[in-house]
């Protein structure tokens, strides 16, 4: 993964992807031209400003004239696709790519508006984050978590980022600063929303047999799941992250012997402050209404009993759209290899990564990683 930055005017997206790819292949000890049999990229055309973005991905990741495909989704979906390809016997080694060139986008709200239903929602002509505002109101109402607890998530994650050299938005700001920030779609304020960042990430997957040849300390994917709730705002259960609950159920179902209480650290979606609390509850890491109090007493800090987003999360590192899931996965891999540096969580053996595809979607994925094959 490259360092995240608020802008990268000196590099094209191709050059950013190349840097991430070189780092990943070097880390894994593979040559993409001879060892990697499949490449899975992640992009959405309107985020790139280019139609059929799949055209432009192969060269800078070493995939020319090889099996390369694009998943229109978050990097964790691409990871799941590569996992299926390896399980099905199509490849021994696969590379997964995701990136964000958010600074190339000059009208992000205009583009997010294009994701709203053209007949029944878009005519309102409002900041698409209103969908997040609607969710937050209902979530706080149903769960009993408070507005202030959401602000504490921002304080925690931006401070966590101070210890992470990859982060673009590290800061000592406080919960009070968050509450005072400009309202966007109340109760959502400016600082509740993760700021966009540029970066690229590449992850190399290998079958069990090959992985052991490449390195002594591979990190294992022991569970994964992805799920979509209704795309229709009219049919939403506004207070619940059904997608996160169902994806986590699938992932834990696959990871057989692992339960939520066995997880040592989490890197989960916090692209809107309340989402960290909502996702913790949806995935069964605590009961309804307990995530706020847990945050308040510091349990989710890096030294707490359940470290959440020790990296700084999207609030502290920056929001990288379809790369966000892969960014969190890279963080957990570093943690499980005991290479996370200043923000290393002690004795981390099992980690969980989760993504949400952002406003206005109700889709997301969960991956459980372990340093043990189990």
């Amino acid at each position, binding site marked *: 993964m490259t360092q995240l930055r608020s802008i990268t005017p000196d590099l094209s997206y191709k050059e950013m992807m190349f840097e991430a790819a070189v780092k990943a292949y070097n880390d894994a000890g593979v040559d993409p031209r001879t060892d990697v049999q499949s490449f899975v990229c992640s992009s959405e055309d309107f985020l790139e400003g280019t139609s059929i973005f799949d055209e432009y991905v192969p060269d800078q990741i070493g995939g020319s004239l090889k099996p390369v495909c694009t998943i229109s989704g978050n990097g964790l979906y691409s990871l799941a696709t590569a996992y299926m390809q390896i399980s099905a016997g199509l490849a021994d080694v696969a590379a997964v790519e995701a990136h964000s060139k958010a600074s190339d986008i000059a009208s992000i709200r205009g583009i997010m508006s294009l*994701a709203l239903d053209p007949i029944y929602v878009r005519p309102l002509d409002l900041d698409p984050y209103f969908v997040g505002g609607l969710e937050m109101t209902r979530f706080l109402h149903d769960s009993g978590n408070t507005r202030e607890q959401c602000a504490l998530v921002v304080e925690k994650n931006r401070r966590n980022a101070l210890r992470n050299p990859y982060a673009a938005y590290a800061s000592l700001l406080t919960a009070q600063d968050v509450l005072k920030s400009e309202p966007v779609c109340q109760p959502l304020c400016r600082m509740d929303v993760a700021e966009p960042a540029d970066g690229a990430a590449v992850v190399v997957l290998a079958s069990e047999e090959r992985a052991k040849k490449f390195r002594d300390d591979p990190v294992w994917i022991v569970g994964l799941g992805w799920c979509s709730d209704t795309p229709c705002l009219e049919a939403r259960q506004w207070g619940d992250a059904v997608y996160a609950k169902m994806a986590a159920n699938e992932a834990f179902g696959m990871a057989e012997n692992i339960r939520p209480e066995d997880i040592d650290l989490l890197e989960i979606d916090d692209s809107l402050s309340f989402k960290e609390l909502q996702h913790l509850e949806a995935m069964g890491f605590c009961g309804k209404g307990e995530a706020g109090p847990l945050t308040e007493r510091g349990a989710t800090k890096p030294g707490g009993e359940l470290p959440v987003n020790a990296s700084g999360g999207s609030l502290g590192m920056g929001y990288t759209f379809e790369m966000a899931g892969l960014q969190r996965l890279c963080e957990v891999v570093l943690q499980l290899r005991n290479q996370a540096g200043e923000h290393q969580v002690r004795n981390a053996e099992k980690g969980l990564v989760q993504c949400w595809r952002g406003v206005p979607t109700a*889709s997301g994925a969960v991956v459980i990683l372990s340093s043990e094959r189990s």
Partner: protein
Amino acid sequence: MLAKKRVAVVGAGMTKFMRRAQETGKELAYEAARMALDSCGLRIQDIESVAMGSAPDAFDGVHMKGEYLIDGSGGWRRPYMRNYVGGGTGVFAAIHGWQHVASGLFDTCLVVCEEKMSSCKPHPQAAFQTIFDNFTERPLGPNLVWIFALEMHRYMHVHKIPKEKIAVVSVKNKGNAMDHPCAQLAQKITVEDVLNSEVLVWPVQRLDISPTSDGAAAIVLASEDVARKITDSPVWIDGVGWNLDTAYWTSRDLYYPQYVENAARMAYQMAGIKNPREEIDFAEPYDPFDYKELHHMEGLMLCAKGEAPTLAWEGVTQRDGKLPICPSGGLLGVGNPIAAAGMMKICELFWQLRREAGKRQVPGDPKTAVAQAWGDLMQVGTVVVMRA
């Protein structure tokens, strides 16, 4: 490690292909998905995962189009994922669905492809401007037909192919489509009609091209044991392959689609096919332009390089010929709602191999067939081998 499973197509469905549909994209996807389920007596509750294929969002005019289409595609509260390899998507969607089941993660997968190009104004071609490199190509004002004309012309030059040997493909496919109830451009035309049609970008003329279309198509996939419970006549996906060439298309010799050959080799190897010319009974190569069918026959190694035009001219590729090509009527005749058009080819293999294609049925006893799609900047090949 999970065991690799054999995967079958057990159901298929599609909408009519139309220049302009009243249905929303969601409604189109629903009609195709529902028909695919009905055709094998399954309900949505029997479906464990959904793979969606759709091409540029700039056609439908919806960012994250895959998310928008979830409800119409049966993705509600299911593992649902969208794949996207440009024009190659329709066949790649079947490959992606195959991966869902062959990996052992799921026993069933509903694969749905949708495209609604008519939403794009003034013309869907406007969206194609944005497929070019923003710095080095788009300022020149290119359109999609330019690059295909460049490829077609190079192909004609290298093999010294007269235009009429290409035009015969358009005549055949539009004629074959007369028997397809979903066809948008079924026509009885002659080689002269093609040669006399309006010149768009020489050597491409009006009747060399498939139309822009709205439509959807879908299949149901199942693992071997589940498939055998659903139907007595599953059609097996025995080989899959895909390949993407460099984005720097001006550095390649466009006369031959090496990426299609690579994809075909991957699929044939998996299916145990050593001699495709002998072992493939009929094929549905991608035919958005008439010359592409010939180009792709060569890439699929169904004939030697430069030999396809002669086979077409001599009638070998007619529905009752020795090697029927595009018995459906292809994109030229049935229509080209990009991803749905590729999926239509998978549907055609399914119906033909089950001998359910009615008036379009190829004669004899077809056992093995190949479908292929192509896209991006003349760059991606996606190939599926199916067996009865």
